[in-house]
């Protein structure tokens, strides 16, 4: 893979290329489209803004090294809260392979209820389970989706499952795109055994083997059009010191596929004057995530085991999904309250901490706007209904740990010390301002939603941008609603569908 990737960082002068298809972005959406179209004989060029980090290098990195090389803005990205909304730290990849390189590898198909909403309410007729089956099956085979066996669960997850059962919650095994996982709990920061099958290990090498070119350090600003037809893209090479914009980049192509993610695809469309302003960049959903830590008497060592291995949809009717996770000890240390002696004393209990998380199946409220530089300004206004889901989620997580015998609970509230289990009911979570909650998101979706009409959507059900020939979108931005589950597999299946329709 490395040898076949071109780096624009060292390119001298302007770069002009020609292809059948230019794909902007090399993540879960772009890599799939590139792989499928290159296999069909098209001359494909993939443009990636970030660097090319070989998986062998990533496997040797410390978490903060991974953050500085492959995470966008070193993970310092926040959706600006409007109204009674928490500030949400949104993380995504910025490297060859995109966010697939930094996910936990969790794979879910689009839930049945969500698909029914798409077909019945949004009139996306081809999005029922039967019609999507071949796309999901194809992706699952190529990225090796397998169920995480119970014996790969960390003690942290096992303790939660024990408590959850006592609370009547159904905890099920997850599926992930892994092969020969050793349970090191580092999926988000580079798998030391290359067990996570991210797209830089399958779709991109496949595309390259069929003649595709992958270029790193290429920033696309706009789509070039001739009349109502897309004829390529233009932008800049990031070849000046500090990765700043340098020489010009132009790629002429018969077809253009935007797969730059839900934060950047709408920016490119807006800069190109494509799409209606009341839909492009609107409807962003985030799946705001929250976590609860619990201290047990026994050593837990939650880093030993699969990072994510189990989940519960018992609270799905309330718009909440519970998912297992663990984070490296440094990240865990950061969530320990206090300063100095108090903080370090708490940090010394890290090997006794268990952790579980959950996401809110949110209803939108995010918006992507053009920022002063090359990055967007993203705002997020949480609805009252979603806001009411936060305490429910936190209480469900903490309740399960309490039932499992936790000695102390650490809730995701800024500045709140650990609480004793019998004090949990007295913590006024429902009346706390939302900005007091710590929240993170890894699932931005929906800012260029697909739909049945150009009045309410940016693309049709095949990812084709309304009113512009030869222009497609194939990333999380076209997913029209939040899914309530991790979206990686769904994005890849939808991208497969886009690519197969383009192949004809």
């Amino acid at each position: 893979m490395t040898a076949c990737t071109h780096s624009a960082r060292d390119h001298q002068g302007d770069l002009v290329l020609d292809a059948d298809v230019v794909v902007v972005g090399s993540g879960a959406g772009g890599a799939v489209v590139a792989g499928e179209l290159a296999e069909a004989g098209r001359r494909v060029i993939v443009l990636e803004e970030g660097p090319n980090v070989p998986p062998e290098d990533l496997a040797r990195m410390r978490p903060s090294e991974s953050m500085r090389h492959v995470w966008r803005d070193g993970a310092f990205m926040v959706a600006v809260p409007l109204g009674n909304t928490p500030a949400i730290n949104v993380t995504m990849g910025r490297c060859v392979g995109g966010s697939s390189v930094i996910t936990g590898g969790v794979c879910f198909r689009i839930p049945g209820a969500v698909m029914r909403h798409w077909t019945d309410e949004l009139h996306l007729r081809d999005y029922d389970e039967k019609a999507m089956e071949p796309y999901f099956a194809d992706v699952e085979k190529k990225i090796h989706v397998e169920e995480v066996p119970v014996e790969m669960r960390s003690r942290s997850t096992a303790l939660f499952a024990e408590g959850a059962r006592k609370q009547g919650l159904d905890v099920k095994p997850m599926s992930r795109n892994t092969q020969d996982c050793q349970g090191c709990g580092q999926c988000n920061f580079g798998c030391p055994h290359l067990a996570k099958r991210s797209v830089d290990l399958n779709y991109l090498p496949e595309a390259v083997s069929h003649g595709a070119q992958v270029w790193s350090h290429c920033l696309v600003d706009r789509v070039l059009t001739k009349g109502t037809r897309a004829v390529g893209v233009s932008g800049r090479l990031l070849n000046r010191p500090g990765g700043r914009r340098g020489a010009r980049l132009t790629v002429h192509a018969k077809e253009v596929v935007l797969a730059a993610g839900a934060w950047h695809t709408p920016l490119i469309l807006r800069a190109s004057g494509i799409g209606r302003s009341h839909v492009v960049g609107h409807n962003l959903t985030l799946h705001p995530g929250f976590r609860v830590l619990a201290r047990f008497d026994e050593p837990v060592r939650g880093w030993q085991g699969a990072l994510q291995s189990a989940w519960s949809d018992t609270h799905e009717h309330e718009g909440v999904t519970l998912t297992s996770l663990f984070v490296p000890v440094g990240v865990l240390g950061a969530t320990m309250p206090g300063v100095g002696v108090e903080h370090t004393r708490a940090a010394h209990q890290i090997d006794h901490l268990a952790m579980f998380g959950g996401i809110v199946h949110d209803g939108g409220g995010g918006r992507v706007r053009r920022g002063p530089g090359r990055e967007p300004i993203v705002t997020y206004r949480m609805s009252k209904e979603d806001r009411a889901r936060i305490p429910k989620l936190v209480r469900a997580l903490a309740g399960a740990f309490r039932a499992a015998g936790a000695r102390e609970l650490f809730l995701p509230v800024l500045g709140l010390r650990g609480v004793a289990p019998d004090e949990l009911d007295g913590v006024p979570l429902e009346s706390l301002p939302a900005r007091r909650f710590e929240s993170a998101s890894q699932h931005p979706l929906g800012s260029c939603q697909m739909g049945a009409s150009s009045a309410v959507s940016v693309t049709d059900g095949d990812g084709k941008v309304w009113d512009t020939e030869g222009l497609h979108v194939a990333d999380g931005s076209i997913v029209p609603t939040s899914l309530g589950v991790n979206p990686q597999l769904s994005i890849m299946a939808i991208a497969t569908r886009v690519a197969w329709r383009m192949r004809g």
Partner: protein
Amino acid sequence: MESRRDRLNPRPNLTPILYTPPRVTEALAHDRVEVEDRVLGGVGLTRRMAPATRALAETLFTTEAGPPDAERLEWLVADMDHLFVQAGRRARFVYRLCLLAISLISPLLVWRLPPFRRLSRETRTRALERMERSFLGLAVFGAKAILCIIWYEHPGPAADIGFDGRCLQDPPA
């Protein structure tokens, strides 16, 4: 004669933060994975950010045994510098905002004058605790998060908190 500034911000308790520019130690240089296609020529911590970072880290990671070793603090600041060289301007901007809020506002919360780094370690601790619980808690959380991530990657602090770095399917030690 004691000045007004000294009365408001007593200096006898001041722990001097003697900052020298980051010096990448041998150990750290070997520790780091250098990516061939990495960003070149970026800017890391500025001259003002580095001592503020060091003061913040010294406050955060003080244990019952006292403040952390100067060498480990130096390692931390040097690695933070490298992080921002690679992560880019926006990341540095966000961290800088957090640091600025801590530096200028947290002293006021304990009736002292800024900057934060000139306060005694005990006063800095009280100031940060107060700020962590205030509406500006997010600024403390942001700075603390990245400092903790790097701090506990050092083999010393990692071992101190019981991290053995083992995978589930590692052979028994």
